[in-house]
């Protein structure tokens, strides 16, 4: 019990911090998405000169936002599911059923992570023309003296990060459920819901 408690504490510490960071990145990404689209509206309707990069930038930010904050939903509230059956079966069976479901979710995450990594590291690393135009227009490369190029793979990477975080959370949930089956639910409570995720916050 001591060993599993120590391992769970380690997962808890890593996941809690990673997800706090994820939510912070998600917050910034959502704010930037709004600013980017408002910039486009200003250029399109006021200056009558639509920019080539805002929609691509907003989509990239949206995917990164999703990747960084969705694991918080999985860890603290669970993704949408129908849990009615769980109310009508014996507690022991319910615990085994939840463990099986968590194992299935972990397995799916592993398979998807393999595909996400292949997608990211495939040889076809296209340049992102819209976002490179942003670098060119703003003169960031000239200012920094760098040769930074945006590639679409940087957006694909979001899915690998997302699935890695989901996998980390999955492993913690599987381990906690396993411990609950052996030592009882009370000994291994669920992680505390962050204030920002409470219904009435």
């Amino acid at each position, binding site marked *: 019990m001591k060993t599993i408690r120590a391992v769970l504490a380690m997962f808890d510490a890593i996941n809690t911090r990673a997800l706090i960071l994820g939510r912070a990145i998600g917050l910034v*990404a959502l704010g930037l998405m709004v600013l980017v689209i408002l910039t486009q509206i200003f250029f399109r309707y006021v200056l009558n000169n639509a920019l080539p990069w805002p929609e691509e930038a907003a989509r990239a930010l949206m995917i990164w936002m999703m990747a960084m*904050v*969705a694991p918080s939903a999985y860890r603290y509230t669970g993704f*949408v*599911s129908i849990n*009615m*059956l769980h109310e009508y079966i014996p507690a022991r069976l319910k615990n085994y059923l939840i463990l099986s479901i968590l194992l299935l979710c972990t397995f799916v995450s592993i398979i998807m992570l393999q595909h*996400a990594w*292949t997608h990211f590291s495939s040889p076809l690393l296209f340049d992102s023309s819209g976002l490179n135009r942003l670098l060119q227009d703003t003169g960031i490369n000239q200012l920094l003296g760098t040769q930074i190029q945006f590639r679409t793979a940087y957006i694909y990477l979001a*899915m690998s990060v997302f699935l890695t975080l989901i996998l980390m959370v999955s492993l913690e949930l599987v381990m906690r459920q396993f411990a609950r089956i052996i030592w009882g639910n009370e000994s291994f409570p669920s992680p505390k819901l962050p204030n920002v995720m409470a219904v009435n916050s």
Partner: protein
Amino acid sequence: MILAWFLPLFLIFLMIGVPVYFAMLAAPGFMLYLNGQERDIALMYRNIFNGIDNGVLLAIPFFMLAGELMNKAGITERLVAFSQTIIGSVRGGLAQVNILSSMLFAGMSGSAVADTSALGSMLIPAMEKQGYTRKFAAAITAASSVIGPIIPPSGIMIIYAYVMEVSVAALFAGGIIPGILVGMGLMIMTRLMANKYEFPPAKRFVIEGVHISNAENFVARVIARLMLATVLYPLAINVITIQIADHFKHVLFHFTCALIVTEILFQIQRRLVSNEFRIVAKRAVLPLLTPVIILGGILGGVATPTEASALAVAYSALLGLIILRSINLKDLGPILVKSAITSSVVLLLVGAAMAFKTVVSLSHIAEDLAVYILALTNNPLLLLLLINLLLFIVGMFLDAGPAIIILGPILAPIFIDLGIHPVHFAMIMSVNLTVGLATPPMGLVLFVASSVSGVKVETISKAILPFLAVEIFVIFLITYFPVISLGIPSWLGFVKDADLMGPIVGSFF
């Protein structure tokens, strides 16, 4: 074909409690593997990514953020006070106010949950104080909150439009009359119940001693006049037949005429209503500009849904941070995080839906199901009844968004082939599954209403039954009278050559 078994497997996964997102990937993925189509699993993954990587979906986090900002900025209190001045004096006043506030709130937020938590936390205690039972207050809050995703903007309609490749603007236009019908139906039921159960006497103003700053007073007066003049402008064009060669001068002349009529109407109402009424109405003008921006932008063809939603965010932030000063910069963090989390879960499901849709088409299950359904009956009236029953049962157990994502790609092609217009079918699905949010045992808004009111879900579930009966009746009206869903989209030119009358009215002519 073994691949078609992914659907029963998917249903088993759902029943045992596998999260919808994972079930949508695991069931088709497993059957593809058994069928020796491992390469298609990679295609499924690509479609998750491509499914999320679309500009239309940006509107989902933006509308959620705008709703959250509006909620925190305290505009709920202004809308409720405004509803109170309009309808508060009839019997069952606060219950009617609850419904009208939901209809107004629906024009700003696309979420039933936001509606329940915002209006419930304010109106349930107020209703209890006036002598309504807490369970009735919670039930009417939950029942009226389903109007949120029906009257545009609507999160689930954006999802449907994207997954099923239908115009967002057409769906938004199509939701207006069904949403108003649900609201009016609930109001009639409340009025009937008020007589039977002797609801407390009505009181016109909930919030007394309201005041308005000089600056807001001025801005509200200008905006109210501009809004009414814009409504009267088409009338001015038709009534005043003077033609001016220069187009700009022609528009300016008729708009000035509309403004003059507006001013006369405003001066008349000044003499008819009390000062308190006018202040409450002026305080509602700035919040009510949000649906004007959103709907005017999208339905007028001026802005895309994404642009309109970003403008709604900017306007809500401006309202909360600068004009009303009801939120500060510190509040923005939690608001952004909450909106990001809620919308991310939806985005993930949309991605999974696109992967699921790939396997639906690879397996030809929609075609097989169509043959099976048509073997039962080919009477469209009966088929629509059956589909409504199916949707209602699904809505009892599953949220509207995931249900649309799962059932849309399977059911919509069947009914479109039978001659049902895609926008009409979208409305049937959206309204039916949205009502499912308030049906026991798994209605999401019942849980939120329970958490806000402290009343047990089972108790609210019983109290909500008369209102659910009204909503089911409206679903049938929408199903058998397509003009309800297609009237406005057709008038605005989003829908062409549609049979507005439908099979029942059509059989008489």
